């Protein structure tokens, strides 16, 4: 497993867009670095307890160098600001990996959707797909042209159809054209970007076959128990309850004296599954299938919530 920490040298730190730096890392002493495939990321120990994950966005065939790109996030938790303020060429950084939770699967056709710094895992994917002579479409959106990294490199990728969409010039990405029609056979969609973009792609591709959409978020989805308050009606018990923000639905149901069998309380085992009579669901579990989620008639109250309004459960 590539789970051990090693130290690499910072070969260069270069601005590549507004608030974005591209950092090239090299193995110490001219050694080779572990191989990686598009979609892979590394952990970088930035010191002071800051460990962050960054997608590799260089050339997988270059065994001597890795490249990452980091957006300064003023509203972040401080990791990206440390990169921008402290990391310089000649420094040494502890890194771990690469690991790949977002691998490129084999398909006949590819649709890529990237928002902002979400372009980083997509860029090597695009190059790989182009090298395989597979048809591709790529949509890349950002706040403004200056904020969008690697545009020139993307334009140099042969074949396919590339759309560069700065929001201040052209508005939001048009997801209907590439995703709204009939899904192509053996086609896949790859999306990386902020939560709002991923949600929009999920909605636009909802009629595509289950498993078609591959997505990677900048950050984890909303934490368990997060989300706003809502009301739940337990139909058979005749009880109406308020589920406060940050309190799991299952806790509220149990507090009302209604037992729901459960085990993990983490959205893995499915034991607490309940039938949903009505309500808009915010599924946060790890085990329901895409079809089950889409049907909206069951949920796991240990981690999942309603998106507001009133949720009615068959309890």
């Amino acid at each position, binding site marked *: *497993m*590539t789970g051990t920490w090693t130290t690499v040298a910072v070969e260069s730190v270069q601005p590549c867009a507004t608030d974005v730096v591209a950092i090239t890392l090299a193995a110490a002493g001219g050694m080779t670095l572990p191989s990686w495939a598009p979609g892979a990321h590394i952990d970088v120990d930035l010191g002071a307890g800051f460990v962050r994950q960054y997608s590799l966005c260089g050339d997988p065939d270059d065994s001597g160098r890795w490249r990452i790109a980091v957006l300064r996030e003023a509203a972040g938790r401080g990791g990206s600001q440390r990169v921008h303020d402290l990391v310089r060429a000649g420094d040494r950084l502890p890194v771990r990996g690469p690991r790949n939770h977002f691998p490129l*699967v084999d398909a006949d056709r590819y649709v890529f959707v990237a928002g902002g710094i979400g372009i980083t895992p997509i860029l090597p994917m695009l190059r790989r797909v182009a090298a395989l002579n597979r048809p591709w479409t790529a949509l890349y959106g950002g706040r403004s042209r200056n904020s969008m990294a690697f545009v020139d490199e993307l334009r140099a990728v042969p074949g396919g159809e590339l759309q560069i969409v700065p929001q201040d010039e052209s508005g939001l990405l048009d997801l209907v054209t590439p995703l709204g029609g009939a899904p192509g056979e053996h086609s896949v969609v790859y999306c990386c970007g902020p939560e709002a973009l991923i949600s929009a792609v999920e909605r636009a591709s909802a009629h595509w076959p289950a498993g078609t959409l591959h997505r990677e978020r900048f950050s984890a989805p909303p934490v368990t128990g997060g989300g706003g308050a809502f009301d739940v009606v337990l139909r058979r018990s005749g009880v109406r309850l308020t589920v406060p923000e940050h309190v799991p639905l299952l806790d509220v149901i149990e507090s009302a004296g209604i037992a729901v069998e459960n*085990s*993990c309380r983490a959205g893995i085992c499915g*034991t607490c599954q309940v039938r949903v009579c009505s309500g808009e669901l915010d599924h946060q579990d*790890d*085990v329901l*299938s895409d079809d089950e989620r889409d049907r909206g008639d069951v949920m796991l109250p240990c981690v999942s919530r309603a998106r507001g309004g009133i949720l009615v459960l068959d309890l």
Partner: protein
Amino acid sequence: MVDVRNVRGGDGLEPIRAEIDELLDSVVEATATATEAFFASYDEAPDPARLAAWLAPRCWREIDYVYLLNEEIARYGMRFQRRHITLLAKQSFQEAEHYDMVGKAIESLGGTVPTSVPAEAEPWSAFLWQCLDRHPLAAIAAWNLSETSASGSFEPTFRGAERHGLDEVVRIYKRIETDEKFHVGLGLQMLSTYVADDHDRDEVLRAMRGMRDIAWKTFTPESVGAAGA
């Protein structure tokens, strides 16, 4: 009901998913067959001491999992997401509960709760700990297959125990069955999340293949005979 084999994680197992499914399916079938055979023999000679002896390696598995899970956390925990450390610890607590529950069932049958590894469980235990030493994910793979094997024993156990009015044994294993879904799902999620390369996949398959050849054997009627019960 959900199928925890579909738990979301990474794509690390995808290249070997078909073989893993085959291994898991085959051990469930072998364990179910062995459990049916045990209760068929128990129907002919319903001796509570023999049932207690049959439960002893099951009981040992529970406490050995406690030791192993905590060692997994101690050795390798910082490689995992904090959420997974928490869930491993939760699984460990549930395994300790299972040791206590199965222990009470054994005592109710007049048997003795094992406090060291029973002879018939030694190959299972030795292989599990060897896997832990070999690779951070190998023990997870081995216990995942072992936990999955146990799922093959539940239905035959319920039917067999019900035939003999052993309501407490049924109740205990109904609770264990529920928790096992979590444990199996967690193991698969961790494997799919942290398996990164072919070496990892080779270690996972080695662990699962090895455990596939061991896990079901203590469910057979012969294993009780070999234990001298």
